């Protein structure tokens, strides 16, 4: 289904406090402009981002969900981001069966210094989700 005219995707970003949320702040301090259709939810560690959070976001109508944390090996809590990968894969396994396109759910590592990369990831993800059109769950929910 193609997106209606003037439609903007609704994207939820779950980010860890130490790297990815900080990376978004760095984009701000450097005034690196990017697409505004995402909303960020901060947790302390990407390991906290449980399947229930992501699924709830889709359930409520998110067109895309981005999970992001510190680069592997750089976790503020040693290996929390590796737990994040496991939870992400579990989530992806069920969203796939639900029939949500894989590209609606993405995992990215963004460090506190990578403001430009944060902006780039947001722009790319926004465009991917825009190309997919509204989530099947958002269609009825709206």
């Amino acid at each position, binding site marked *: 289904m193609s997106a209606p005219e003037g439609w903007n995707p609704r994207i939820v970003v779950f980010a860890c406090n130490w790297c990815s949320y900080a990376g978004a702040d760095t984009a701000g301090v450097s005034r690196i402009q990017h697409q505004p259709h995402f909303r960020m939810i901060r947790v302390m560690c990407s390991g906290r981002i449980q399947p229930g959070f992501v699924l709830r976001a889709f359930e409520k109508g998110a067109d895309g969900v981005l999970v992001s944390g510190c680069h592997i090996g750089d976790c503020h*809590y*040693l290996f929390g981001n590796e737990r994040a990968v496991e939870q992400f894969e579990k989530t992806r396994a069920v969203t796939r069966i639900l029939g949500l396109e894989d590209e609606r759910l993405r995992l990215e590592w963004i460090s506190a210094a990578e403001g430009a990369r944060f902006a780039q990831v947001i722009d790319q993800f926004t465009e991917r989700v825009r190309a997919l059109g509204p989530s099947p769950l958002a269609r009825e929910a709206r």
Partner: protein
Amino acid sequence: MDAGRHPLIDVVTNAQVVACSGEPGAFRVRVRKRPRYVREDRCVACGLCVEACPQVGGNEFDMGIKARKAIYRPFPQSVPATYVVDPDACLNFLNFLTPKQRDRLERIRAIKARKDPAYRTDFLVCGHCVSACEVQAIDFDMQPEETDLEVGAILVATGFQEFDARSLRTYGYGRLPNVVTSLELERMLNASGVTQGHVVRPSDLRTPRRILFVQCVGARGEGGRPYCSRFCCMNAVKDSLLIRQHDPAVEEVTILYTDMRAFGKGFDDFVERARSEESAIFLRGRPATIRHDPTDDTLEVFVEDTLAHEPRRIRVDLVVLSVAAAPNEGAVELARMLGIETDAYGFIARRDPAVSAVETCREGIFVAGSAVGPQVIPDSVAQASAAAARAARFLSAERVTLDPEPPPPLDLSGPPRIGVLVCHCGINIAGLLDVSNLVDHAAAQPGVVAAVDDAFACSSTGQETLARLVAEHRLNRVVVAACTPRTHEPIFRETLARLGFNPYLLEMVNIRDQCSWVHAHHPTEAQEKARALLRMGIARAGHLEPLEEGRAPVTRSALVIGGGIAGIQAATDLAEQGFPVTLVERSSELGGRLAAPRLWHLYPTDRPAVEVLARKVERLRASGARILTDTEVTGIVGCVGSFQATLQGAVTEILPVGAIILAFGADLADPAGAYGHGRLSNVITSEDLERAFFEGGPRVEGKPLRSAAFVLCVGSRDPEGFSGCSRYCCPTAVKQALALARQGVDCTVFYRDMRTVSSGAEEMYREARGAGVLFVRVPSGSHAQVLGETRAERVRCRDELLDRVIEVPADLVVLSVGMRARQPETARFHDILKITVGLDGFFLERHPELAPVETAVEGVFLAGTVQGPKDIVDSVAQASAAAAKASVLLAHDQVRLDPAVSVVDPDRCRGCGQCVEICQFHAPALKEIEPGTWVAEVNPSLCKGCGTCASWCPSGAITARHFTNRQVEAMVDALFAEASP
């Protein structure tokens, strides 16, 4: 950032030391602070002045690649977050006038002033920034200020400056367009740097297809600098990986090196990764010339591939010079002022690096990092902590505890009464977002009883507004929509705490850094986003719970396990600061590897190890530390601040301590029959050779030696076994070969990469070559062969650099054995304390750069080779660092516990133990609460609050406080809740 916010740290920037007097414990230092023309107490770092400023100046931080305004912030994370005016670029300083023009202007002004008493000579040529600033922070009347600081100790951490590659004409730096230095490249690769992380050719700003790194520029003998800069090898490898990951347009990266000095923990594995991922072509050779092709601005590099034995011409788009670290220009002058010495190169000199890596020639003045010569970051950080530990001795009388009396807590019970404060941040927020609409939107949300706006929420008036709001509306939740919680949450929390308002009932909504600043092109959508973020914050606030900071008592004493050089150092440092310390050594003597007859002389000073050890032990004994030899630690229970260690041996007791330092050292690798060891009588280890020196030097069948061969990397850099570098062996082998060569023995050293990185080692390597020691490079994957039936006669190996087989006679073959994690101690303490062991078998530090001596277990620190191979100097520095970190903990009789941690509901817990399995900090543990029923309990002293266990818990028994399921779910729901006004 942490330092900038620390209540006990005053950061004085834009300043220099101009005089120093007094004595250790009572120095008086005069500091001249240059005016920044922006008042730090007022500036809110909004950046409006930058937008208003019409003048463009150079940008030293981005090597002039990118321009900046005359008023600027050096880089986004700068501390303080205050802008500064560059007088050379700013119009108001008239520096753009010639001296003649200035004179004339001055004269005209003087005449005018005489005629008109109201005439002001200090009018501003340009006032754009002044009028743009909404908080009146810009002040061109600021003058240089001199202040006298009274301090107990001084720590010099002035770093290094880049070697000026212009002086080496062969590389064409400064002359050829596309030759840059590694620091310039670093700025390009930095995400917030000049090109936002993209590498470009300066000539046309296009992505280079082929890049070439030249290592050792201005180092290892070049440009008059004999030393090795230590960090360049790894830096080039890291950059090559980064470039290939981020810029697919870059097709090829070549690194021209001589020895790949991957000496640090995990470095060799990193280089292997670069090799296996083919991120870089490693080519051994130093270029002769670089020729510029003006038709397309490419560069042709002439170099011999010394391993392939053929001259090469490599055409590339960009050449990166890995330039050496040079001493700071001001270092000599600073040293003179402080009364300390510099070395031959102009780095700050240490009194005796073998004894202490951080002590200068003057008592009370310390040095850390690259001010003493090039250092890698982990070593710099360890030294910095070490210097702090040593300095603390001069301050111990001054130790401060910060604990203001808290106000009586407000009654915050009942259903949420939320107050919302929306900040304009001048025009930073209000310039793009409709603040009054946000206030209305907030007011319409459930639970909100008051919503107001403020020009600058973080200013003193903003804080007063907040206080008034709380009182007037009896708020029990506060939402501040402003900037990022990462910088401003502490400020608002502090304000609320002063009111007796539980600071955990505050929620910050980031509508500046993550909204108005980054969505300027989409005002409508930005407004929509800000409204959504506000709804989400308010929804979360409704579910916030008051949390009380916990306290745990601290036993203000330490246990040091291991009586080698690291243990001795750590114990001495702590005892000298006045903490009761118990040092436990399993054997009957102190000294570990330094004790006779294990180590003859130390490199590079050539001093007898026993002499250094004796001084160390003497100082330890004088420090008052309790020394228990012939004693073992058989068990430890408890956690940070209150451990109980069971000691057995000379005493049998249970010792309560607050901190533990592990310093039981490492083992040496067993050659296990390699190179005929054990079979051929004259094949010995490097340690055997040290022992022989004590007995008058090695002899063969009673006769003096005529020849000796050294084989390096025995048990190191072995993909099958320990893949890392043992770090101490190269300089040790060079030291030993040099000692023998001086006695007329023909020495040959079989090496793979000569890693003489420690201080003075490169010079020693040079000296050994001068003394006739032969160095044969062993090809990767191949080994030297020791020939002989009952004893070694000759050693044969292909010399990679000659491409022919070399055979040398050897009356003695010395195997330079690497280090291994000491067993069974490492395994035993892993079991006892649950400290993570890395893939290399050594204990894993908390973070290689940020926390090199801490472990995942709070209160347990690592000193010396328990963390990985090190030489004496590095072990000593690391031991002092461990002592410094322990002393921070022991400085108070209580340790504060962050309340935002995980808690377990024992009724819901199924005792499955998954939380125990995944937590790296060993915070959760299973307890048998009745026979056959276990439930988890989270120790708040150990929990770091990441919340991962809460996500993992199948039954939902674990709650991650302050980031609960309900709080996060409320945000998700509010995000999609369609908006009212």
